[in-house]
């Protein structure tokens, strides 16, 4: 019974919903809600990587580029064309998806190190574009994002954003869980184990990998749009190499392929710098150390390790 519960999709969603629902009653101040909202946004972006890396086993070291596309869409659309931010969020997701579709096919033919460096290069090029096209993007200093008004309701303040991002994360988690259980998800997991075997059982390997890449890009773009609108600011650093690495680190530290893992990993890497402000100078060193330590000593990630431990205790 308990084991069944641990593996159930509904249980994961309910658990996540309870966490999101309870935090506002425990948070001592609006600052905590704000940090939590940032966690939900990054968890959403990390969920895209869970589909791509966890299910399909394809690494992307340039994923923050898609985050940047979503963010700049929400920034540029209202400022330059007078479009509604919600529409721009959709446009950003579409642009990211189309771009992923176009570059994904040649990139995803590559494997291992080659795939890593190709996605990395792609991400760096995107961040250079955001950096350099200053008439559109405001250059290295980034640009302001107009406040969002939805149906006459002005979206501002930590509490409002908390519920918007929390809701987005729940929807994203629900979709990711369902993708995992769908025929596409099973195909992705099959090609993760062996592409040759998957192709042999009639799976169109390159089409499925491409689908995972596009899904991952759309997740990142939506997260980027939410992040930019919430912060009221987007800078090229959001799309930079370091950010891509952090996203991958979230997925791996939390647990590759686990929806809850993406949330735990995001929480870990977002909250940690806040908790370490007293040793601010060492923030980067601590991040580097943690990535190394987790990869060496807990390669499966937090959530799968805890789940395995619980299952062993229960059985």
């Amino acid at each position, binding site marked *: 019974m308990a084991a069944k519960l641990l593996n159930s999709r509904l249980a994961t969603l309910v658990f996540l919903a309870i966490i999101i629902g309870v935090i506002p009653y425990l948070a001592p101040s609006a600052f905590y809600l704000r940090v939590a909202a940032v966690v939900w946004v990054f968890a959403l972006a990390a969920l895209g990587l869970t589909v791509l890396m966890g299910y399909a086993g394809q690494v992307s070291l340039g994923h923050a580029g898609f985050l940047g596309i979503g963010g700049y869409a929400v920034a540029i659309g209202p400022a330059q064309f007078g479009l509604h931010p919600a529409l721009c969020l959709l446009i950003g997701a579409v642009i990211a998806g189309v771009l992923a579709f176009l570059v994904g096919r040649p990139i995803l033919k590559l494997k291992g190190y080659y795939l890593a460096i190709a996605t990395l290069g792609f991400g760096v090029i995107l961040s250079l574009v955001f950096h350099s096209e200053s008439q559109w993007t405001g250059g290295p200093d980034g640009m302001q994002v107009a406040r969002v008004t939805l149906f006459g309701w002005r979206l501002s303040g930590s509490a409002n954003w908390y519920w918007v991002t929390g809701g987005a994360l729940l929807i994203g988690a629900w979709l990711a869980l369902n993708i995992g259980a769908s025929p596409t998800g099973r195909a992705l997991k099959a090609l993760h184990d062996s592409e040759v075997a998957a192709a042999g059982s009639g799976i169109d390997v390159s089409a499925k990998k491409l689908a995972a890449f596009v899904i991952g890009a759309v997740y990142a773009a939506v997260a980027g749009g939410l992040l930019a609108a919430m912060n009221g600011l987007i800078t090229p650093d959001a799309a930079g190499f370091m950010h891509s690495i952090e996203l991958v680190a979230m997925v791996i530290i939390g647990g590759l392929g686990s929806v809850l893992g993406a949330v735990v990993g995001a929480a870990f890497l977002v909250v940690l710098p806040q908790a370490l402000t007293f040793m601010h100078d060492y923030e980067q060193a*601590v991040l580097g150390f943690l990535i190394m330590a987790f*990869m060496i000593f807990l390669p499966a990630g937090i959530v799968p390790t805890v789940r395995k431990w619980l299952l062993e205790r229960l059985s």
Partner: protein
Amino acid sequence: MAEFLQLVFSGLTVGAVYALVALGFTLIYNASDVINFAQGDFVMIGGMGTVFLAAAGIALPLAALMAIVGAVIVGLLLHRLAIEPARGASPVALIMITIGASIFIKGIAQVVFDKQFHSLPAFSGDTPIQVGGATILPQSLWVMGVALGLFVALYLFLEKTLLGKALLATAANRLAARLVGVNVTIILALAFGVSAAIGAIAGVVVTPITLTRYDVGTMFALKGFAAAMVGGMGNPLGAVVGGLLIGLLEAFGAGYISSTYKDAVAFVVILLVLFFLPRGLFGGRSVERV
């Protein structure tokens, strides 16, 4: 013509540094199948270490030597503490470990050193030399000369010494090398140490031209990686050619197209090479075994 020559000079200078970084990548990749993203940070340690030791009153040559030794120690520690314990991990895990190491080194460097840009005095003056209407800095000659010297030294080491041959044997087949009595652990440590030394030396000679800071390693690593990949991963000659090629393309891109996108050139090249020549210019064919 003069402009063209000028771009060639500056391209070959940076290209020589990329080639050295790529050579470091190649050495470690051959010996251990690890792509070491911290390779660029060895360049930074060489440059920054020399700057700070020289500022502390140590003569420049001695300061450079100490910085290089420091980088070698960091390289050995990286191998011993981060790569060895993770033996058998997947490529992605190994990439993340070396990226973590790179972030860690940068994090420590900004505390031990500082966050400012630093330079070193040029080794033999700043008077430019006139060549066919273009000018070349004496320091550029230093960079190219040192790079050439290191290539030759590395070649002789790998081909003519027993230790070098043991390294090549380990690269070819680790198990077989162990069977004929090669101490594989020491060889792997050696590869990390030599790579670190090559990177640090590159850092020392290039700092008077490009300046250095705690985070310059990332770009060196990415460009050096691009160079190694363009040449065909694991091929030392390919690494050198790839490095010079990336340096030249970058210089021409900056000179004739747009200097804002100078840094993008290397990545566009990587993507094109990977799409059309997935094994690089000098890479062999690979067959997937099922």
